[in-house]
């Protein structure tokens, strides 16, 4: 099992090594709008609504508890 996980990680990391940018090409990716969660407050408000109304939670981040939420 351990060996499989190591092999998979290695494959992913090797596969990924051909992708990407040079350090001086990060101008666009450094913009706040290009962050994966560009607005953490909107994301947390959405998570709270969907956590309260649906049977699923988490995925993007933690899906834990934190409220009774009827």
């Amino acid at each position, binding site marked *: 099992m351990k060996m499989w996980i190591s092999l998979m990680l290695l494959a992913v990391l090797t596969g990924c090594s051909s992708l990407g940018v040079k350090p001086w090409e990060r101008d666009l*990716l450094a913009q706040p709008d290009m962050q994966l969660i560009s607005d953490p407050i909107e994301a947390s408000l959405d998570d709270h609504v969907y956590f309260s109304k649906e049977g699923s939670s988490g995925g993007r981040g933690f899906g*834990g508890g934190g409220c009774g939420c009827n």
Partner: protein
Amino acid sequence: MTHDKNRLTHGAALGSTLAAIGCSVLQGLPNQAMAGELEKWDADAAVLQYAESDNRVQATEAVVGLTRNVDSETQLNLKLTVDTLSGASPNGAMPDDQPQTFTRPSGNGRYTVDANALPLDDTFRDTRTTGAVQWSAPLGRDWTYSGGISYSSEHDYESRGVNASLSRFFNQKNTTLTLASSLSTDTVSPEGGLPVGLSAAPEWNSGSFEADFDASRNGSEADKQVIDVVLGLTQIIDRRTLMQFNYSLSLSDGYMNDPYKLISVYDEPGGTVQEYRYEARPDTRQKHALFWQTKHQFESSNIIDGSYRFLFDDWGMTSHTLDLKYRWGFGNQYLEPQVRWYRQSAIDAYQPYMTSAQLAENPDALTADYRLGDFDAWTLGMRYGYRFNADTEVYTRFAAYQQNPRDFESASTPANSGDLPGMTAYMLTLGVKF
């Protein structure tokens, strides 16, 4: 959640503690130093107004986030959330061709629902306060870590959480592997005490009401622990595109029932309602989620953000979530249409109602909570933002959320989607960043 009283003490104490942390940093600094100190803080605040159709749940949620930038990679983040809820929530029972009377969860009163109307418990009221502190910093050249604590309190629910994460960069920081974990210990103390799973809900006009009510309760509070582990891979594809893949595992253990939800017992499908029972869910749950997100900036500087989540668990639920946002910038303003589609299948223990014959077989777990049933949901939203400069922005967002239950196909307890609770909610957010 809850009924009647609001206990704000914990929340208020937490709020003052967080404010005190912020103030103590600023206190005692000379004016010039204070101005310099203020420049290192970012603030992010928003208010959400949430309203469900048919006078169901109404909520107002206010969030304030403060970030102290120690350097470009080291941050302290403080977040305080307060939300208030009121309105009516489906109690789990089916609509019936006769008026139905239910005892309030506290045992101090009753409410009657018209014939053919969806049974809603209208005594729903609560205030919740949440505080969180998060620290993140680099660890040498190729690693970063983060750690945080959180606390949340409402009238009948309390939660304490800790989390930690560790990330490693590869390939000139184009690839990031993250391992994150969180632990939360929650306590539920329902109005009127803890209902015994699948015990009979006491009948208000019964001669033995007091004895029946006591027999349906077992103590006043119960605990739940939730452990989450997330393994994430972030990959920069090119100058305009990045991608993330997450696998997350969530293990819950403890009291998982909704103490205010009932299930109707019929003599036969389409027959006469015999009684109501409190719902019961399994006391452990293991959820797995696979999450993929990608973000791309076009030559025009417009940004597309798409994500997909597949979730499955040992309660028998599977769900699919697709989320798409397109940010269309013009000058110092932007418009962002948003669409989200969600579909879940019911858990094994879900039934819209049960029959007397099923009850006689002493089932372990049964719930009629529509949130664990089969449904599809759509969210359509639009966000508009105006930027005064790189750091200052005001924005507003309006979204409509619609849940459409699907027919419950079953040989023993079939139900038509028209008899199950659908829902429409409207959300309006106003926010500011500076």
